[in-house]
């Protein structure tokens, strides 16, 4: 019999355990160890640096005719020129700003609407829930691109309208997710305890329940951001973007007639969209794996 492991006071004096990490720090470590997520971070960083500092460093005006129209990459300009002789690289660098801002702002709008609607539905339940969910379903059954096109067409196409349109069509999923999380967490003991301690509804909703339901919301926020960027590109491609602000979708849309003659005019901004959305998706997956211990085991 091994007496060492059965020292008489071994269970009376617990070993001085190291202070456990803050749960968020643990999550962060797992996230940073994930190679795909790290690659996504690096790609997104390149895109951000490129769009923020690129135009100034490259120094070519994206709206100026600088070379022979439709000349291929390497022949005078690094990524070629479009049908008006504008530098594609300059266009990508400048257009990224609009694309990213529209993507980010409309994602924020989508998330805010979704979380608020879902929070009220999940927290109050009953008739409030039924009414809000019917309202949500209404937005879910409409084809979102069509609805966004209608909205942009009714109001003049401008950045604000586009952001508004993307925000309005995409929130239903987030609302459903938030509602489910609120219903689950609303029944947990700590919420009952907070209620018994005299917390008011607004406090319960946004300070007690919301923090606990954030992980899945954060993950889908990443996906929503990617989707918003694609949406903006889609609208611009269909000619419903703001014609006065250069974005990746707009470059593709304006050059679509030359697709077969000058592939670079469409492919290069397309690649920029692809890389950005890919980077955001990789980051979203990484966050999901880090926050969800069950998914973590698989990898």
């Amino acid at each position: 019999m091994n007496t060492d492991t059965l020292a008489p006071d071994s269970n009376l004096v617990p070993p001085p355990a190291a202070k456990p990490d803050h749960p968020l720090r643990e999550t962060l470590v797992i996230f940073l160890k994930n190679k795909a997520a790290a690659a996504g971070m690096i790609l997104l960083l390149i895109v951000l640096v490129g769009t923020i500092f690129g135009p100034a460093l490259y120094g070519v005006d994206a709206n100026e005719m600088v070379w022979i129209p439709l000349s291929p990459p390497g022949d005078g300009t690094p990524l070629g020129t479009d049908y008006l002789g504008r530098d594609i690289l300059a266009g990508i660098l400048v257009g990224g700003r609009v694309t990213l801002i529209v993507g980010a702002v409309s994602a924020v709008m989508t998330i805010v609407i979704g979380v608020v609607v879902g929070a009220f539905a999940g927290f109050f339940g009953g008739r409030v829930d039924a009414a809000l969910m019917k309202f949500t379903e209404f937005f879910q059954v409409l084809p979102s691109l069509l609805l966004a096109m209608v909205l942009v067409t009714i109001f003049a196409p401008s950045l604000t309208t586009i952001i508004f349109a993307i925000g309005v069509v995409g929130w239903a999923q987030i609302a459903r997710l938030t509602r489910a999380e609120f219903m689950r967490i609303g029944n947990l003991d700590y919420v009952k305890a907070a209620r018994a301690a005299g917390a008011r509804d607004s406090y319960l909703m946004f300070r007690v329940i919301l923090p606990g339901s954030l992980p899945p919301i954060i993950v889908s926020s990443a996906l929503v951001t990617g989707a918003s960027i694609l949406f903006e590109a889609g609208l611009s491609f269909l000619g419903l973007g703001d014609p006065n602000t250069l974005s990746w979708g707009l470059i593709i849309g304006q050059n679509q007639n030359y697709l077969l003659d000058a592939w670079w005019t469409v492919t290069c901004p397309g690649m920029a969209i692809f890389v950005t959305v890919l980077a955001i998706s990789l980051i979203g997956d990484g966050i999901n794996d880090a926050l969800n211990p069950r998914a973590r085991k698989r990898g």
Partner: protein
Amino acid sequence: MTDDTPFLEIRNLTVEMKGDAGMIRVLDDVSLSIRRGTTMGIVGESGCGKSMTALAIMRLLPPGFQITSGQILLDGEDITKASEARMRQLRGNDISMIFQEPMTSLNPVYTVGEQIAEAVRQHQGLDTAKAEQRAIEMLKAVQIPGAEARLGSYPHEFSGGMRQRVMIAMALACQPRLIVADEPTTALDVTVQAQIFALMRELQEETGTAIMLITHDLGAVAELADDVAVFYAGWRIEHGPASAILRHPAHPYTSGLMSCTPRLRLGAAASGQGPALLEIEGMVPQLGKMPSGCRFAPRCTLADAHCRSTVPVDTEVEPGHAAMCWKTKAEVLA
């Protein structure tokens, strides 16, 4: 700091639940009172209405349940008629609740310091620094070692017993006049139970708060309670001073409960045949399917035709000790 005027008085409280076939009575004409600075033990099997009584006092009955008649007087104020805003003021400030599951009753995303301080800040309007100071005091009061350092710890860094101490600290932070403890030690092991009870008694002596202790553990009642109310199937079937009830229960259900409690016998008593551990045959009747006479009659060894047909009345067996039973005077029960 004991005072004979009741701080909490429940008068003929009836709680009903919406069922498929009309309203179902969950609590039927329950009356009880708790004096200042004393502990009332509420005893009974699961599903007897103990927790419903607690939730009715907090006015936090689950959806579908409602108080249909009776009064709950908190220091003279009928809280069955209080507005929701008034209830929010009372909850946490005048009445606190300690829950059964310390492992899940603390919010995992905030430190214990934040959680205690938040309660104080909301109810007493203290600023952040003062609230934090109060949180430290409370953690010290519940004997958590290294209170200052533990303030920034998250609930998952505490053991079950420590978390229940934190819950008690939160419940006491605003110096409530009534604490409703719903099986506060059921989830804890026995040594920790004893510590928690000692702590609750000590804090009660200091603060003079009244405690309503809901439990199915008669040992806990013997340890803490001044008075006892025994619940069965939505009825309060026996009530009186704890010493009287534990020594000579007047209701067959109570004596049945007591013979279900195992006793550890040591020394000379350990040799020889001890009394057999008994059980009460049968189950608590289902809600909405109550027998017509005494609700305990189907399980009662003393029941006769009269018991099965007529609802018993509350009969006083000695001053302050009454039982709802036809047999209580006729038979020697304990």
